[in-house]
């Protein structure tokens, strides 16, 4: 019962953060909203039996990505200020999104999912299994990810630096 309440709180946190981030005019507030959502999602992961992924979510997403975004914001001063915000665009895109949401929600509610007998326990899919999976069956994925990350970082550095040289 308590678990249900807790997860419901996390879900609401996630949704509220997302909506806040989507609608709030100020860029910094927007990132804060994202941070809230990420935190809520981490809670959901925890409930879904994966403490490791939840930890990663907090470490990388909240600790890394959000912070990087804030830094970027700080580096370019004028970005931090409030941007022009057109109400009509927000309303139109909200209508489109709600349309989408309604259709998808109806789909979700009417679909029969082939559920498993009983949800797997945390023991069956702990960190060990993840590591094993990454190093055996899914090793190409792992390697690919590694390459992608290093390339992205090198590219990011290069892109930013070359322009700096020019200026």
């Amino acid at each position, binding site marked *: 019962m308590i678990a249900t309440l807790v997860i419901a709180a996390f879900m609401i946190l996630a949704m509220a953060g997302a909506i806040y981030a*989507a609608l709030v005019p100020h860029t910094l507030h927007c990132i804060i909203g994202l941070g809230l959502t990420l935190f809520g999602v981490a809670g959901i992961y925890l409930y879904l039996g994966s403490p490791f992924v939840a930890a990663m979510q907090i470490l990388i997403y909240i600790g890394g990505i959000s912070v990087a*975004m804030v830094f970027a914001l700080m580096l370019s001063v004028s970005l931090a200020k409030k*941007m022009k915000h057109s109400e009509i665009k*927000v309303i139109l895109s909200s209508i489109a999104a709600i349309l989408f949401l309604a259709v998808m929600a109806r789909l979700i509610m009417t679909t029969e999912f082939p559920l498993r007998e009983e949800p797997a326990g945390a023991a069956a899919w702990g960190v060990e299994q*993840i590591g094993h999976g990454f190093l055996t069956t899914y090793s190409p994925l792992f390697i690919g990810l590694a390459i*992608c*990350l290093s390339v992205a970082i090198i590219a*990011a550095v290069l892109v930013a630096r070359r322009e700096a040289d020019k200026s």
Partner: protein
Amino acid sequence: MSLSAFLLVSLVLFSAGLVAIMSRRNLVTILVGIELMLNAASINFMAFNYYTAVDPVVGQIIVLVIIGLAAAEVAIFLSILMVLYRARHDVDVEEIREIRG
């Protein structure tokens, strides 16, 4: 808590991301929208992983990959953003319309 509840949460996140992408003029907030959508996808993976998948490792691995890719994406995105900012002193997407036909 049932599977549908998680799916609905992820749908809300996704829709919020859509709104952000469609309505904002600031590249940073658009990035936020994208992150929201990625998270929505991750939630779906985890939920299906928990409720239906045969091998529960798959979902987690995919979510980890998504997190990694998101990190890479943000790195690139932000560096481009910095360059763009330096070049144009603006990151308003309404002004960046060079692919216009």
